[in-house]
């Protein structure tokens, strides 16, 4: 093990650190047991992106052809000439250029009126329901991706989150790892070994620490796999050159200014900042892809994107957030390369927002929203689920986009057809009590 990280690696790390500061985090599960599985199915991959805060479906995929859209939305409507056209009714927000390019190839589709089974309009309840896959909020404390791994057979599982906390969707019996950029730890050093002894009796710290050490190794490979330079791979992760109290690589400006507001104003510097943010988000997607293309790498991953709660000043805020979402997806798509055709990505949120603009240039908590489904192996097709329209009598509680599709149906369809998860196990263990959420079929 040497202590020389290549310059590319260092700058990649600092970019990724910025991504962590943007409220983006990645987690993955997968493992070597899958490598032993047979045939083409063994290469299939799934990435779930959770957009936290209540992402506004009417902005991500504006129904510009719906006769009620412009009037309901007023100043926060996407103009028809700005939207990237999908069909006679729908377009995509102009920031979603990569998604649109994929859509034109039949590799991206929208589900414009989807919702979890929760109707409380509380972020926290609705996110719990989205991540646990339960029919109601309380009583389940494991995530459905974790239970998916359980039913896919016993496996050595990796999990990772850039951002240092473990999201609920990954919590459960199967130990998930997490990772974020920074200096690694030398596994051969004494301290980790001594600590592992001390953690033997600690049910939480023992497994988490072991996973953390393992993930470092994989991270090195992921970071260097994406380096264009054919330089010899440095796998050293120690470099514990402790010249100060900061136990990490020198933090980039975005992180060092820990007070930097996340909401950006529209001046030149903000635009530059946004460009940098996009680049960081793209690298994050590409690094995750780097993990996933490794032999024995994860086949199931989750990404969190914060910042979708747009009660005020929605237009600028969503412009920024959607450009990051687009960048993460672009990074994943290019980073996966050949493996893109074996991958499905679903981006979903806990609930949509009110159909009408509120009094402060934003929208309040609603119900139906848009989910994006992307992948190189998607079958061509139009909307996923029905569009209920925005007619006054079609709105849910005279307020929100009426959901026509249960989120669990989409997830069940993807897990069954794309990942080959046993249908009976889907109904009993991954999404219990979901009989009324019929699996969406024919996506891949």
């Amino acid at each position, binding site marked *: 093990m040497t202590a020389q990280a290549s310059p590319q690696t260092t700058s990649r790390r600092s970019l990724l650190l910025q991504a962590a500061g943007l409220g983006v985090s990645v987690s993955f599960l997968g493992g070597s047991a899958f490598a032993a599985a047979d045939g083409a199915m063994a290469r299939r991959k799934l990435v779930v992106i959770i957009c*936290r805060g209540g992402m506004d479906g009417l902005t991500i995929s504006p129904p510009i052809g719906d006769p009620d859209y412009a009037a309901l939305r*007023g100043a926060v409507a996407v103009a028809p000439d700005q939207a990237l056209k999908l069909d006679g009714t729908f377009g995509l927000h102009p920031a979603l250029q990569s998604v649109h390019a994929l859509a034109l190839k039949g590799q991206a589709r929208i589900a414009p009126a989807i919702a979890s089974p929760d109707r*409380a*309009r*509380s*972020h*926290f*309840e609705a996110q719990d329901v989205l991540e646990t896959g339960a029919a109601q909020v309380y009583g389940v404390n494991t995530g459905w991706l974790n239970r998916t791994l359980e039913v896919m057979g016993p496996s050595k599982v990796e*999990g*990772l989150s*850039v951002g*240092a*906390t*473990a999201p609920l969707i990954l*919590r459960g019996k199967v130990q*998930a*790892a*997490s*990772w*974020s950029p*920074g*200096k690694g*730890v030398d596994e051969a050093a*004494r*301290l980790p070994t*001594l*600590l592992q*002894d*001390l953690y033997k*009796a*600690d049910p*939480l*710290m023992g497994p*988490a620490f072991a996973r*953390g050490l393992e*993930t470092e190794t994989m991270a090195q490979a992921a970071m260097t796999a994406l380096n264009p330079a054919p330089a010899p791979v440095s796998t050293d992760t120690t470099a*514990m050159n*402790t010249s*100060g*109290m*900061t*136990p*990490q690589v020198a*933090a980039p400006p975005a*992180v*060092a200014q*820990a*007070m930097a*507001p*996340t*909401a950006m104003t529209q*001046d030149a510097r903000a635009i530059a900042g946004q460009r940098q943010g996009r680049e960081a988000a793209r690298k994050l997607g590409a690094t995750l892809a780097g993990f996933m293309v490794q032999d024995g790498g994860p086949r199931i991953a989750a990404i969190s994107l914060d910042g979708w709660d747009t*009660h*005020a000043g929605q237009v600028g805020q969503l412009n920024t957030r959607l450009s990051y979402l687009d960048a993460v997806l672009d990074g994943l798509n290019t980073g996966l390369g050949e493996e893109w055709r074996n991958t499905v990505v679903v981006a979903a949120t806990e609930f949509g927002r009110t159909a009408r603009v*509120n*009094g*402060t240039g*934003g929208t*309040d*908590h609603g119900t139906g929203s848009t989910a994006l489904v992307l992948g190189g192996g998607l079958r061509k097709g139009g909307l996923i689920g029905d569009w209920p329209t925005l007619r006054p009598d079609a709105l849910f509680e005279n307020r929100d986009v009426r959901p026509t599709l249960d989120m669990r149906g989409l997830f069940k369809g993807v897990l069954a057809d794309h990942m080959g998860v046993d249908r009976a196990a889907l109904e009993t263990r991954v999404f219990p009590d979901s009989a009324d959420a019929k699996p969406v079929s024919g996506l891949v």
Partner: protein
Amino acid sequence: MSLPSSDLMAAIAATRFGLGARPGEIDAARDDPRGFLAAQIRPAGADQPQGGEDSAQRLAEVSDYQMQKRDAKATGEAKGPVVKDLQKDLKDQAGDDFLARARLGATTDAAFRERWALFWANHFTVSATSLAVGSVAGPFEQEAIRPHVFGRFEDLLVASSTHPAMLLYLDQAQSVGPDSRAAQYQRKSGKKAGGLNENLAREILELHTVGVDAGYKQADVTEFARAMTGFSVGRPKDPSPHRFLFRDNAHEPGPRTVMGRRYPQEGQAQALAVMRDLAASPHTARHLATKLAVHFVSDTPPPALVARLQKAYLDSDGRLDEVARALVAAPEAWDPVAAKFKTPYEFAISTWRSIDAQPSGIDKLAPVLTGLGQKPFSAPSPKGWADEAQVWCAPDALIKRLRFSEGFAAVVADRLDPSLLAQTALGARLTPAVAKAMARAETRREAMALLLMSPEFQRR
């Protein structure tokens, strides 16, 4: 339920109820561990960190910055040095606020009092989602939270809900009643009329008071939001610039019904009456009792403990000093098992406390906390920072904590006696396994890193 030995109780008092033991703290608590904590409860509220400007001064600076920026834009020039300096000043001040609070935490003799204040600051989270809110996050805590943490919950709720930081953070300041005089006037003059924003009303119900399972409906949220219209912040030309201002002309006229009760009051008395009833609700007592028990004792707290805290709240009309006394008195709170896993802030502060030191600069502190997942003044949502071990004890977080511990030890361990440090920091909570590992360590640095990373130090 029997209590542990007074040696163990003294260690628990300093680590679980406090912010980690400073040298001599466990000894000071030994004679009467519960009395040691109860003596820290006082009507005057929490201590105040070394103060900077108040929130009105800060918002005046923000407004000045925004004006300069607009002027610069109008003249077509890029951001000049003046604008840049103003922006940098605002960020530096926010950094100073956070550092002052961390230093108070690292040095205070009344760490239970400080932890109690931090709990309420997190309960009424204000997160730096904009430069304006970031500039007043520190003053908010000093003005709205700290004076009231041992007073009546209702006063704390009103102080939080009428503070500019909260009104800006949750968009209340610009919420306008659709049938208010202001909206009617706007419509008459052909302007776009302002309207309702229900963000703060919803979070008061869901997060600050009765809790999400209290059975309120969307209609209750909307009605409460209507009652709250007019709660705003004075603009530079208003009678109370940059302070709370009730805009009567933005208030939605008429009686409101929230959770089955009718509120005929006019003006700001209406929302204040709703808040009074919310504070008195048994749902609120239960919600707060549960959160406190989770924060101090266990992610799955004993029902008997929650019941005690709830009863103390209801019996005293929501007096938080009585709730604090009930917590200290409860035998369930002294369970020898350390079920709580420290948050990054608690871990960092307790590290400095263990060696009787304090963080030297925000440039040292902020990157550490950001790397560990707890960026200063930046909770991910109005719900505040999580309290569950599962969230913070993630694989990457442990690796990061190890790096921090190694870095910290590299700077300070060479002039310390590791076994003394272990006694100082953990007292009777030190286990033979950790003591042995430290005794066998090759260097002082390794011994100290082992101590900081031990389950006993990571938990409380």
